[in-house]
């Protein structure tokens, strides 16, 4: 018997999801959120203990998130994305790079003169860049990849946009404090818009990567 949790309603791109598939997707999204909260708590505990340095902590955190992506992966939303006409990565990547550049320009234009804050320069560039890239991509694969898809199946794209943006802001509070919530909420919305436009997390992952790596020079 073929599993058909999604059914086309006609020749158009319209599609519908059965009630059982919605409930199932809701439970899976909740499970992913729990795993995300667990990994963020673990990271905060490790950072507070000082047991592991920043870069090693980044590798560990990124690997945890890739693990979440692996257990939470789904093809359930693929069909929805395909029906909407998802764009391939060759288009998403350059647009994502430009979108990340826009995020880098914003503080330079709006925040000048601003105090400098060295974040990563206590270590060599390449290990830091590798850890930063791993974390940025892993966060996108989980938040705007698997989690987005399950929430979109359960509650639609608007719910996915709101939930992933809020979670994106909240997961950074232990590291940066509550004052960062407005900025990360807004950037989460921005990245969510890219994900929605292209139908996959490719553009948002590249934008996130560019914005994070750019902090080395800010």
């Amino acid at each position: 018997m073929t599993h058909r949790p999604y059914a086309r309603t006609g020749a158009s791109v319209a599609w519908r999801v059965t009630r059982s598939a919605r409930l199932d997707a809701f439970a899976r999204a909740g499970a992913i959120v729990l795993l995300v909260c667990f990994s963020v708590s673990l990271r905060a505990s490790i950072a507070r203990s000082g047991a592991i340095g920043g870069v090693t902590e980044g590798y560990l955190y990124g690997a945890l998130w890739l693990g979440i992506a692996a257990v939470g992966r789904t093809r359930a939303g693929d069909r929805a994305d395909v029906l909407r006409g998802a764009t391939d990565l060759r288009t998403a990547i350059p647009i994502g790079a430009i979108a990340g550049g826009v995020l880098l320009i914003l503080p330079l234009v709006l925040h000048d003169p601003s105090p400098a804050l060295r974040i990563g320069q206590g270590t060599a560039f390449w290990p830091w860049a590798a850890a930063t890239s791993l974390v940025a991509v892993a966060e996108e694969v989980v938040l705007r990849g698997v989690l987005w898809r399950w929430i979109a199946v359960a509650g639609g794209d608007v719910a996915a946009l709101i939930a992933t943006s809020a979670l994106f802001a909240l997961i950074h509070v232990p590291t940066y404090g509550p004052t960062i919530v407005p900025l990360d909420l807004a950037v989460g919305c921005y990245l969510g818009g890219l994900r929605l436009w292209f139908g996959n997390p490719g553009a948002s992952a590249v934008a996130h990567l560019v914005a994070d790596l750019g902090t080395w020079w800010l």
Partner: protein
Amino acid sequence: MNRPRRLAAGAVLLGLAGAALAQISGPPVARPLYDGVVVVDPYRWLDPPAGLEGGARGVRQTLPVQGGGFSVDTPENPPQAQIDADYSALSLPSGTKTLVVAITPVKAPPVAPGDGVLAGNVYELQVANQRGVAVPVASGSQVTVLFRGPSSLTDAKIELLSNGAWTAIETEPAGVPDMYTALVSEFGEYALVAPPGWLPAGALATPQRATPSPTPTVAAVASGSEPAAPQISATPEPSGPAPTPSSPGSPGGGLPFDRLIALGIGAAVVVAALIVLRRPIRPPPG
């Protein structure tokens, strides 16, 4: 443009506008996104409590008066003390070609803040010109200072030691935990002050109250004399019991009961989530 594309375009524009607004009104430290891998050095004390690290360092830079301003910070990552100033905010004596900017950790004065406890080192901020003449902040102007405190400093104010008393300055979190910033209208001795009862994470005892030491003068800074050398004293105060270590990495051994409970809850959450995620997708009814 179909509905998802319209929603996507709206989200991008809304996010961009929100990010711009947050940059204007948010933490004073510019970041494109509060994210990524943060490498934080342990806090370096001038007079470390037992169990914590000493070796606080100052900085002294000679800067030509060029461009709009300067930023000078201590060598830790992120810096433990930092000054950012526009030249227009300084009252430059005539003939000033270079500035000597110094940030020096100094011994804590005998006078304690009235509204809390010193959280970290006292830093003396000094600016002089090439002739050793002190350069004050211009009347009606302000410069930015940032101070990072020890780990676990969730609430603190920047205070100025003025006329033998600590005065609180309007302080904002700088966007990174344990780091605070303020606009100040004079240079001098500054420190972070935490609420009463605060103790640094990992400390085995409160820091010994330092005896006052001669304060380096601006002229001494300009003439090139060395900043105060760190003097480390790990002797705990004789009175009162040692507080319980509050960081997981601190000595003391064993996992406390509450941490075991937290680990158990975490493990249960992970197992429950994995069970949900590994279920096969149910076919639709009918």
